[in-house]
C-alpha cells in the first residue's frame, strides 16, 4: 500500500526508535504536523523559538547519547535553526534536523518563506540532503540517522519540500545502510597501540588529556581502567568533563585558558601527553609553539583530520576511543612490563605539590554573594547528582571549575561555538529525557535573556528545570576582558538597570521565581528551588566585579597564568606581558 511522505516520515522515526522531538509548525510542514496530531508514541515538544528547539534536541542528545530530532518549517523556521546546528556541529553532537521546504516546482523562485537551507547549512552540518522524490525519503532518513551517529557524530539536515510530504510511495525501511563513500575507522592500528603502550610504560611524567570523544564514545569505564592501571593523572577539556570522575584522586580538573594551575603545569612539564578524543582547540593549547614543550604525544581520535591539525603527534591512532582503549588496556596488562610504580610516585608527589601551591580558590569570607560560592553550594547540596547545563561566559567557566562531574552526560555546555542561550533549552531537553533527575541551568543575566522565552516550554510541559542566574548586571566575561585588556572601558557590557526582574518574569510565565541578595540566602533559596516540582528561576545577585581565575591571556603559553589571590599583582604582570 502506498502512503504519503508525511506518513513515511512518521514511520521512519518510529523505526529509528524516536520518542521525542522538538519543533515549531509552519505552512509547508502542515501535512506532517497534521499526521503527528494523532500520534501517541511520538511526541513533539513545541518550543517558543526554533533555536530553542535545536538546543533542546542537542541537550536531549548529550544527556542520552541518542540523536536529537527537530522539525521546523521552511524559510525563517529553517534559518532560525542555524545557530543550534552550528553549536552541535562544533561539539560533535548527533542530531537530525528536518526543515520544510517550498514545493519542488517553486524551489529557486524566491517563493514565500523559501531559503536555501541546504546551501546555508552545508558548512555547519556533517551532511545534508534535499529530498526531491518521495521514493527516496525512507532511504534518506535511514542514511541521515546513520551518518549522524557513525564515526565522529554530528548534525544532519534533511530538507523536505511540501509536495514530497503529500506524494505517495510504497514504504520500505532499509534494514541497514552501506555507503561506499563513508566508512569511518573504528579499530585502532594494533601496532600503534603497542607502541603507545610501551611509551606509557616508560614515561616519567605522563598526563592524559581527555576530551569530548571519551563521553561521545562511552569510554569512561575504559579510561578509568587505563588511568588507574598505569597510574596516570587525567586532565579534561571543557567537553571532556564527566568523561573521567572529577573527584577521582587522579583528576587534575580542567586544563586550558581557565584550567587549573596544576593541570596546565602538568602539561608543560610532562614528557608524554596521551590525548584521547580531543582536538587541541586554541582554548586548550594557548600559544601553540609553547604547548607541552617536552612531551611526546599519543593522539587517539576517530576523526583523522583532528590528528596533526594543530600539533605534531608522535603516535597517531585513528579509531573509536572506547575500542582503542579496550585494546590498549589489554596490551598494557598482557604485553608491557609494569615498571612505572616508582617513577609515578615522584610524579604524583610533584602534582600534589602543585595542587597545594595553587588550589582553586576565591574569597570565601565575602558577605557579597560570590558566584563561585553559588556553584559550590549547588555541588554540595546535590552531592554532584544532577545534570548541569550552562550558558556561555563566566557562568560556564565557574560551573566547570567549581562543580565536580563524576559521570558522563551530566555536563551540557556549548564548548566549540560558545553559544549564549544554549543552556536553558538544553536543560529542557535533558529534563524531558530524564523527568526525575534534577536538571540545573547555571546561567548569567545576559545569557538567560537569549532564550528566555523557553520558560513557556518548560512550564507547559511540566519540565521542572532549575535556572540559577548568577546575576552580575554585566556581560561578565567580556567585561572581564575589558577590565584586563581595555583599560576598564566597559563598552556595551553594562546591563545594570536594564536587567529585568527575573522573579517577576518567572511569575508572569507561571513558574516560580526566587531571589537571594545575601550570602546567607543562597542555601535556603537553592533548597527551596530543589524541593519544588516546577520550573524555578533563581536570581542570585552576585558581586559584579568577580572574575574567572586562573586565566591565561589569549595567545600566551598555558603556564603563563593570572591568579585569583594576586589579582592586583597579576594585572601588573599582565601589563608586562603586553
Amino acid at each position, binding site marked *: 500500500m502506498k502512503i504519503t511522505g508525511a506518513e513515511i516520515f512518521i514511520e521512519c522515526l518510529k523505526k529509528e526508535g524516536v520518542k521525542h522531538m522538538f519543533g515549531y509548525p509552519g505552512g509547508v510542514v502542515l501535512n506532517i504536523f497534521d499526521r503527528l496530531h494523532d500520534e501517541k508514541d511520538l511526541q513533539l515538544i513545541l518550543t517558543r523559538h526554533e533555536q530553542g528547539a535545536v538546543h533542546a534536541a542537542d541537550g536531549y542528545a548529550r544527556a542520552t547519547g541518542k540523536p536529537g530530532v527537530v522539525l521546523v518549517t521552511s524559510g525563517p523556521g529553517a534559518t532560525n535553526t542555524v545557530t543550534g546546528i552550528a553549536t552541535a556541529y562544533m561539539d560533535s553532537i548527533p542530531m537530525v534536523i528536518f526543515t520544510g521546504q517550498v514545493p519542488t516546482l517553486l524551489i529557486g523562485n524566491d517563493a514565500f518563506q523559501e531559503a536555501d537551507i*541546504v*546551501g546555508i547549512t*552545508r*558548512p555547519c552540518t*556533517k*551532511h545534508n540532503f*534535499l529530498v526531491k522524490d518521495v521514493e527516496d525519503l525512507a532511504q534518506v532518513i535511514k542514511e541521515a540517522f546513520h*551518518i549522524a551517529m557513525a564515526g565522529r557524530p554530528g548534525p544532519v539536515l534533511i530538507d523536505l519540500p511540501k509536495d514530497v510530504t503529500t506524494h505517495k510511495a510504497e514504504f520500505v525501511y532499509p534494514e541497514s545502510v552501506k*555507503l*561506499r*563513500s*563513508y566508512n569511518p575507522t573504528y579499530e585502532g592500528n594494533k601496532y600503534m597501540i603497542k607502541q603507545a603502550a610501551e611509551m606509557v610504560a616508560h614515561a616519567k611524567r605522563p598526563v592524559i588529556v581527555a576530551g569530548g570523544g571519551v563521553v561521545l564514545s562511552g569510554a569512561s569505564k575504559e579510561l578509568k581502567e587505563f588511568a588507574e592501571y598505569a597510574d596516570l593523572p587525567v586532565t579534561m577539556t571543557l567537553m571532556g568533563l564527566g568523561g573521567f570522575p572529577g573527584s577521582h584522586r587522579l583528576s587534575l580538573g580542567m586544563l586550558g585558558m581557565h584550567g587549573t594551575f596544576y593541570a596546565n603545569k602538568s602539561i608543560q612539564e610532562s614528557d608524554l601527553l596521551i590525548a584521547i578524543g580531543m582536538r587541541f582547540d586554541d582554548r586548550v593549547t594557548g600559544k601553540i609553539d609553547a604547548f607541552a614543550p617536552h612531551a611526546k604525544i599519543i593522539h587517539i581520535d576517530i*576523526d*583523522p*583530520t583532528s590528528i*596533526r*591539525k594543530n600539533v605534531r603527534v608522535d603516535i597517531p591512532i585513528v579509531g573509536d576511543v572506547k575500542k582503542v582503549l579496550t585494546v590498549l588496556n589489554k596490551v598494557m596488562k598482557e604485553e608491557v612490563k609494569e615498571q612505572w610504580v616508582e617513577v609515578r610516585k615522584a610524579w604524583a608527589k610533584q602534582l600534589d605539590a602543585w595542587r597545594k601551591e595553587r588550589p582553586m580558590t576565591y574569597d570565601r569570607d565575602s558577605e557579597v554573594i560570590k558566584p563561585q560560592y553559588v556553584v559550590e553550594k549547588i555541588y554540595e547540596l546535590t552531592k554532584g547528582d544532577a545534570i548541569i547545563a550552562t550558558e556561555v561566559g563566566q557562568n560556564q567557566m565557574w560551573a566547570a571549575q567549581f562543580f565536580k562531574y563524576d559521570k558522563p552526560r551530566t555536563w551540557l555546555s556549548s564548548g566549540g561555538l560558545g553559544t549564549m542561550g544554549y543552556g536553558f533549552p538544553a536543560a529542557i531537553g535533558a529534563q524531558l529525557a530524564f523527568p526525575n533527575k534534577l536538571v540545573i541551568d547555571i546561567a548569567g543575566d545576559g545569557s538567560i535573556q537569549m532564550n528566555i522565552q523557553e520558560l513557556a516550554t518548560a512550564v507547559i510541559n511540566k519540565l521542572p528545570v532549575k535556572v540559577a542566574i548568577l546575576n552580575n548586571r554585566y556581560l561578565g566575561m567580556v567585561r572581564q576582558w575589558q577590565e584586563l585588556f581595555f583599560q576598564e572601558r566597559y563598552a556595551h557590557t553594562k546591563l545594570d538597570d536594564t536587567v529585568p526582574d527575573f522573579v517577576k518574569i518567572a511569575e508572569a510565565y507561571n513558574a516560580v521565581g526566587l531571589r537571594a541578595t545575601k550570602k546567607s540566602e543562597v542555601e535556603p533559596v537553592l533548597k527551596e528551588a530543589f524541593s519544588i516540582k516546577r520550573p524555578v528561576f533563581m536570581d542570585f545577585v552576585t558581586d559584579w566585579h568577580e572574575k574567572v581565575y586562573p586565566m591565561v591571556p589569549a595567545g600566551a603559553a598555558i603556564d603563563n597564568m593570572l591568579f585569583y589571590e594576586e589579582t592586583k599583582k597579576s594585572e601588573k604582570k599582565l601589563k608586562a606581558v603586553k
Partner: protein
Amino acid sequence: MRHTISVLVENKFGVLSRISGLFSGRGYNIESLSVNETTDPQVSVMTIVTTGDDWIIEQITKQLNKLIDVIKVVDMTELDHVEREMVLIKVSPRQEDKAEVLRLAEIFRGRVVDSSQKTYTIEITGEEKKIEAIVELLRPMGIKEFVRTGKIAIAREGIKKS
C-alpha cells in the same frame, strides 16, 4: 608545494559546492579545478590543483576524505602520473607574422581550429609548461582571446614514485 589531487565523488547535486566550500571555508587555495563524469555515471572525478606545505596538504586530503560524498582521494603528486591541459588561443597577427604563428602551432603540435581574415584560433594540449611556453611565444603576435581548461591527471600504470 604544488599538488594535483584527484577526487572521486558521488555524482550528486551540490557536491561541487561541498568541495569548493571546504576549500574556501578553511582558507585553502584552488588554483585549477576540472570536473567530469567517469564511465560510471554515478561517479564524477575532480582534479584539483592546490598549494601548501605537507601539513596543509595532509589536512586537505583528510578533510576531503571526511566529506560524505567523497569516495576516494589520490594525491597525484605522490605518484608517477600524466597531466594535461588544453588551451584555445585566438591570435590576430600582423600580415608578416601569420606564417610564424602557423609555424609555432605546428612546432607545438597544435591545430588551427578556426580562421578568419584577421584571426587564427589554435588548439594546444599538453603539460602546463608547454602551454605557458606557447602562450609566451604567441603573445608578441597579438593574442586576442585565450581560454584554458583546468588540469586533468591520471596515474601511470604499475609505477610508484620512490
